[in-house]
């Protein structure tokens, strides 16, 4: 699920430029492609006797059809329900008995499946993953679909419907992106669409997207590369290449014609305001500067919005800012929760002041330095575990077109200047936005409006 992913990314986005700071090391790897189109990435790390097998399918919620939101993620669940040679329930039982941790996740852009297991069990993971890549459909039935449909509906309740402010994001996505845009609906999807998914949808989706030529398998950790190659060829080699993939949606940059102010009543004690601007996609030339801007505004006690609203004035309980960039598009979000009895409209005035300031004047050297250093050490921290490294290699392979990208990625943050930060603030946060106020039930008067917001632009 995307929620997990965003948290993980936020973690990385913590640092920049201390004298003598360590450079980000390269991740050594080997990449090759099987005749059936399956990409294979191998990364050896023998420091602990464990190995991760991490398969990325290049399909996510952004590929879903109208009326079937949430399907890519529902399908992910079905992938654990057994296949031709793996009876229902056996997938997880075999892995647990071998000491494995395994899971999957779905984002707008991709779906992943990983097993993290003792190094002697590599063949088990490959056997299981090959069986569900090649032979899922023969034992697929409506009972499997119906069961996981209920599980996913409960996942939605647990992550969205029964969580304070949880339903806000779907309103924002629908307002921020034009109708039909692949990011205009949530990864988890609507209850109605989850209910409508059919067995034919499952079969068609599998035939369309779950083919070796749409997948990358990364093996990271303690293994013998010759043996790993032999096993990959043995289990995955015979799986036929699938038909040509439908083109990924090609979308134009999002431009809002006006500001939009919305309100959502929720079972909450305190209101919360969300501000969202369309920005740029991952690895766009302005992506890193927007990350830096988010940190300058709301990461740590010295960040501008935190310091004024939470530390000095003590009118807000929390403030977050993030540049959330994906394969096709990105958005910049600020959200703020006032303390009890504090006016969101008054807080909004301070937000507008601070945004004007960051658009009109360069940030300080110290601010830039602090943020860069935090980013720099976060890159180092990402390299500690083999599961994390397998995810990084897959991510760069798909998103940047090259697994060997960690140093280029880190260099983006080294290159950001004070002028860049000021420019992107003006260029993106100076444009139209979507503002959602989630308010306690019956308190619609707490909603931020164009007037409170200093007039429509």
């Amino acid at each position, binding site marked *: 699920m995307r929620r997990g992913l965003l948290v993980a990314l936020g973690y990385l986005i913590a640092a920049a430029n201390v004298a003598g700071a360590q450079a980000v090391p390269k991740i050594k790897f080997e990449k090759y492609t099987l005749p059936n189109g399956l990409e294979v990435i191998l990364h050896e790390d023998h420091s602990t006797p464990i190995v991760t097998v991490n398969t990325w399918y290049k399909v996510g919620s952004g590929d879903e059809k109208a009326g079937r939101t949430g399907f890519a993620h529902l399908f992910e669940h079905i992938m654990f329900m057994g296949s031709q040679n793996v009876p229902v329930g056996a997938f997880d039982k*075999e892995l647990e008995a071998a000491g494995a941790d395994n899971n999957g996740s779905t984002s707008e852009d991709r779906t992943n499946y990983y097993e993290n297991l003792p190094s002697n069990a590599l063949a088990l993971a490959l056997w299981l993953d090959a069986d569900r890549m090649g032979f899922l459909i023969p034992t697929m039935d409506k009972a499997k679909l119906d069961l996981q449909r209920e599980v996913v509906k409960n996942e939605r309740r647990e992550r969205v419907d029964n969580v304070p402010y949880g339903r806000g994001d779907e309103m924002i996505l629908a307002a921020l992106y034009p109708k039909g845009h692949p990011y205009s609906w949530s990864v988890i999807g609507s209850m109605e669409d989850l209910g409508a998914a059919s067995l034919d949808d499952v079969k068609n989706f599998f035939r369309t997207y779950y083919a070796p030529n749409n997948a990358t398998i990364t093996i990271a950790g303690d293994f013998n590369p010759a043996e790993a190659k032999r096993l990959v060829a043995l289990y995955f080699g015979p799986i036929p290449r699938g038909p040509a993939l439908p083109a990924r949606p090609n979308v134009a940059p999002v431009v809002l014609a006006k500001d939009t102010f919305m309100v959502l009543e929720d079972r909450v004690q305190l209101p919360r305001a969300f501000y969202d601007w369309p920005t740029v996609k991952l690895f766009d030339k302005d992506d890193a500067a927007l990350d830096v801007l988010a940190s300058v505004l709301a990461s740590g006690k010295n960040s501008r919005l935190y310091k004024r609203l939470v530390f000095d004035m003590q009118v807000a309980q929390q403030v977050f800012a993030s540049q959330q960039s994906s394969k096709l598009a990105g958005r910049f979000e600020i959200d703020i929760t006032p303390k009890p009895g504090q006016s969101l409209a008054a807080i909004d005035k301070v937000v507008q002041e601070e945004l004007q300031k960051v658009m009109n004047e360069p940030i300080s050297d110290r601010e830039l330095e602090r943020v860069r250093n935090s980013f720099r050490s976060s890159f180092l921290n990402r390299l500690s575990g083999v599961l994390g490294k397998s995810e990084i290699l897959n991510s760069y392979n798909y998103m940047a077109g090259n697994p060997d990208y960690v140093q280029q990625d880190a260099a983006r943050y080294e290159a950001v200047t004070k002028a860049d930060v000021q420019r992107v603030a003006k260029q993106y946060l100076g444009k139209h936005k979507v503002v959602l106020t989630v308010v306690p039930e019956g308190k619609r008067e707490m909603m931020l409006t164009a007037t409170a917001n200093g007039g429509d632009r």
Partner: protein
Amino acid sequence: MKARMNAGAALLAVTAAASISGAQTLDRSKPPTLGPPPKVSLPPIVTRQLPNGLKLMIVEQHELPLADFVLVVGSGGTMDPASKGGVANLTSSMLTEGTTSRSALEIADQIAYLGIGLGAGSNWDAATVNLHTPTSQLDSALALFADVVLHPAFRAEDFERVRKNRLTTLVQLKDRPTAIADQAYAAILYGTSHPYGHNLLGTEASITGMTTADLQSFYGANFVPNNATLIVVGDVTPAQVEQKISALLGGWKRGNVTPATIADAPKAGATTVYLIDKPGAAQSSFRIGSIGVPRSTKDYFALNVMNTILGGTFTSRLMQNLRETHGYTYGARSRFDMRRSAGPFTASAEVVAAKTDSALIEFMKELNAIKDTVPAVELNKAKRFLQLSMPSDFETTQQIANQLIPVVLYGLPLDYYNSYVANVESITQADVQRVARQYINPASLAIVIVGDRKNIEQGLKAVNAGPIMIRDFFGQPITP
């Protein structure tokens, strides 16, 4: 049709390649035969002690230029005085909010500038101060770490800010059914006079009444070197660590620590359903269980194996029943929370409101069924999982440091993890059955359910698991 032909062609190609490299046949119908699991020997732990009583526990790990430091102070929320709930937790929170020579903003500036992680927290049994740093910043990072440990200022204006934040956190807690369920479950199980019955974050009343003198007093009484161990894991050597830590923390003064005295927990009564109304809740939050065992229990391994079978992993009985068979929930689990004294045993899930009654029936079925003999194959799966998954908990410096915290807190032997596999192996079907019968009593459970009363109460009555009592968010009877 076309796909099938392609498959045949690809298969031929592989067979041909295989015949060149040697005999290779592929029978997909059976799992591959695996070689023996890797031998795991955990890195050696070096111990030292400074003259002031501070113990050092050092593990070298040179894979990346990083190091983790965890100072474990052996006093936690269990020590909160009765009317001062939250004092241990707030004391830890205040460590990074200003020292005698640095303001809160200066500390935060340093953390970001150095690109390090530095924070403090507390649980029932301990306060911890954690540092994660690239070794290139080791000296500056350790100087900051030592400053927050030795010289917290507890300034009034910083405390007021933190207090307001905490009071708001407690207000927001009312929005989250899962947090309400946890809070009420503890209070119902232990009662309000037992330390484990209170919220570690405190209450509105206790936080409002707290002063910096309370924090000073908790800090002074408990943050002494002879009550602390510093765990160090990473790209460092024991000699280097000892030298640096002696210089920074060698002057820390000893003190007399009064150990926590924990009252006996109340005796559990007959199984009762405690219903907490959360109008509009899409799911019902279940917390079912009883008072369990302290970490020192001799049944640790038997309980760990038994709980793995009952609700510890994805293929455990609770998860398979409530999620993978019935689809009532996204996840169901169980856990023995072992502390210095007996912490709770809890089975839990977030269940779709309409299936609240059915879910309770299935929970009760599993809590009864675990008392029967567990099939050997299920026992072995659980044992293999516990044994073979252990190395993945020792991969990063941070993970290794965290694994050493219970060794410090509960006096486990230094070779604890090296004998872990053999200890798990020794557990038999009879052991599992014995501990299930001893520690899980379906006739004496607290069943706490936070949900939309008007939709779920009738169904719960019909299940007839026990009398239904209506409670508030703190687990207390509702006074009209």
